[in-house]
C-alpha cells in the first residue's frame, strides 16, 4: 500500500502543544480501534499546525459500496488559533472519491468533510475521543453508502464559491430562448455570501454591469459530490 506523505516534520508526541492535538493523543492511548503512528508539525508565517498520523479500524460489513479498508491511515491536522475544524486527510493514495470530501488539488490527499454544522457550533461539543469516533463513523457509513442523509441537500460541485444564484424557473424550460439577465446581489452582512437574483433584462439596454452567461449542461446521472480535483 502506498501513502501520501503527511504534512510537516516529525516531532515527539509529548512535544505537542495544541490542546486539541493533545486531547486526541490521549484518546488514542486507550481507544482500541485506533493507533498513533507518528506526530508532525509545520509552520509558515503565522500559521502553525500539528499533525497526528493515525490508523483507524472502522466497522465494516462484507459487501461494501466504496473501497474503505479495515485499517485506514489518516493525518489529523490541528491549526493554532482553532479557527476551523481539524483537518482529516486520508493518506492512502487510492482512497476513493466519495461523497463528503472537500475539493483538493490534484495529487493531494482526500480531505474528509466530517460535519454538517459549522465549526463554531461543533467546537462547543468537540472532544478528542468523539472526534475519533466521528471519523470512524464517517468511514463506516461511507463504506456502505449511507453517509449522506436522505433529507440532506446534495453536495455542492464546487466549494470555493459561497455565493448563491437564484434562477428564474423559465431558464430551465426546454424551449427557453437565449435571454439576457441582470443580477441583483443581496448580502445580509458585509463579507458574507451574496445571493444573486436573476431577472430578465432588455438586450438593447446599455449597461455597465458585468455580464453573466448561463450555460445548461445535461449529463449522465452520477453520484453527487465535490469536483474530483480542484481546477
Amino acid at each position, binding site marked *: 500500500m502506498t501513502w501520501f506523505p503527511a504534512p510537516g516534520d516529525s516531532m515527539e508526541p509529548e512535544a505537542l502543544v495544541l490542546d486539541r492535538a493533545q486531547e486526541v493523543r490521549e*484518546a488514542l492511548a486507550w*481507544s*482500541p*480501534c*485506533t493507533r498513533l503512528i507518528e506526530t508532525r508539525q509545520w509552520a509558515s508565517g503565522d500559521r502553525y499546525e500539528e499533525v497526528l498520523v493515525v490508523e*483507524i*479500524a*472502522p*466497522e*465494516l*460489513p*462484507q*459487501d*461494501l459500496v466504496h473501497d474503505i479498508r*479495515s485499517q485506514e491511515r489518516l493525518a489529523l491536522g490541528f491549526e493554532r488559533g482553532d479557527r476551523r475544524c481539524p483537518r482529516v486527510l486520508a493518506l492512502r493514495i487510492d482512497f476513493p472519491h466519495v*461523497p*463528503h470530501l*472537500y475539493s483538493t488539488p490534484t495529487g493531494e490527499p482526500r480531505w*474528509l*468533510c*466530517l*460535519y*454538517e*454544522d*459549522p465549526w463554531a457550533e*461543533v467546537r462547543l*461539543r468537540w*472532544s*478528542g*475521543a*468523539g*472526534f*475519533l*469516533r*466521528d*471519523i*470512524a*463513523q*464517517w468511514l463506516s*457509513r461511507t463504506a*456502505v453508502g449511507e*453517509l*449522506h*442523509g436522505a433529507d*440532506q441537500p446534495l*453536495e*455542492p460541485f464546487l*466549494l470555493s464559491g*459561497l455565493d448563491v444564484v437564484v434562477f428564474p424557473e423559465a431558464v430551465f424550460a426546454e424551449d427557453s430562448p437565449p435571454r439576457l439577465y441582470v443580477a441583483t446581489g443581496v448580502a445580509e452582512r458585509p463579507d458574507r*455570501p451574496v445571493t444573486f437574483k436573476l431577472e430578465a433584462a432588455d438586450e438593447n439596454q446599455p449597461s455597465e454591469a458585468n455580464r453573466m452567461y448561463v450555460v445548461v449542461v445535461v449529463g449522465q446521472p452520477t453520484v453527487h459530490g465535490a469536483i474530483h480535483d480542484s481546477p
Partner: protein
Amino acid sequence: MVKVKFYPVGNGDCSQIILANQKRLLFDYCHRRKAEDKDDPRIDLHKALSDELTAAKRTGFDVVALTHLDDDHIANSTEFFFLEHAKKYQSAWRKRIGELWVPAAAILEKGLTGEAAVWRSEARHRLKEGKGIRVFSKPSKLADWLESEGLSLEQRRHLITDAGRLVPGFTCERDGVEFFVHSPFAKHADGGTVLRNESALILHATFDVSGRKTRYLMVGDSSWEILEEIVDITRARSRDIRLRWDLYNVPHHCSYLALGPEKGKDYTKPVANVKWLLNQCQQGGIAVSSSDPIPREDTNDPPHRQAAATYRKAIVDNQGRKFAVTMEHLSTQRPKVLEISVGARGVTLMQAGAVGVSAVTSSRAPRAGSRR
C-alpha cells in the same frame, strides 16, 4: 438483524445466536468462578447472560446446544439452567431451555462424573419424555439404550438428526436461518470408547437476511482428522456450499491439532482438506477464536501462536476481514463480548463504542457535509 455473540470466557466456549425473530440459541456455557472476581479479565458469564435475558424479558433460551461434555464447554452450567430431571435444579431463577441439543455421545458416554453426568441425566430424561431435546446422530448404541428404557428408535426418531441433514424447527423462510449438521457421524459414538471431541457437534448455519445468504461454520473442539473427513464427505456429495463460510468458529481454542499433525515453527501447515476449508472464507469473512490471547512464545496448551498465524494467513489470502480472539477483543485487560451482526451486507464485527466511547459529549451522530 441477526447477532452472533462470542463471550470472553478464556479457553472455553460460549456463544449465542439471536435471530431477528428474537429466538435465542446458546452454544455451550463455560463459567469460571474466578471470573466473578472483578480483576479477572474473563466475563462473569452467569451475570452477563442473566442480565441479557432480564433486559430481553426472557426466562431462558429457545435452544441450548452442548457441543460436547468437556468441562470448558459446560463449566458451572448446572448452576445456571433449569433442569427437568431433578428438583434440585428447579429454582425459579434458573434459566429455561426450550430444546436441548446434544450429540448422541452425551447420552451414551459411560463413567461420567460431575456436571457431565448431570447433563447426561438431563438429556436421557428429555429423550425418555420425548420432548425438549434434539439428539445428533443415531449410532446403534443409541437404539440399544432406548430399548433398555423400553423405547424404540422409531418412537424417538423425530428427535434425532443425522449428519448431512438440516435441523428441523428452523427454516430460512420462518426464522431466517437453517442449520446443516456436519458431525457427529454415527460411527463416532459406536466405538468401544466414546471420544468426545470426535463425536462433538459441528453445524453449518445459513442466515438469510433480505435475500443475502451468510454462512457460519460452527466447529467445536474438533481435530484435523475429523475436518478432513467432513470435507471429503461433504464434497463427495457435492455440498461444497455447506463448507463455505463468512464466519468461522475456530476449533479447539486455536489448537494446531485442528489444522494438522505438526505444530510447525512459526506456522502450522494445514493438511490439504483443512487448507481447502480455510480457503472457503468469503471476502470480508471473520474467524473467531474463543480462547485466551494468542501468546508470543511457544505453549503446550492452546491457543498456539503457529495456528493463529495459519488462520491470519487464510484471512489475508482470501481477503477476509479479521482473525479475532475473544480474550483480545477491544482490550486484553477487560475484553468485551465479541458481537457479530449479520445483515443484508454480510457479517460485521461490531466495534460501536470502541472508538471514543466515554468522552463523547454529543449524543447524536454528526452529519457529514458542510452547510457552509
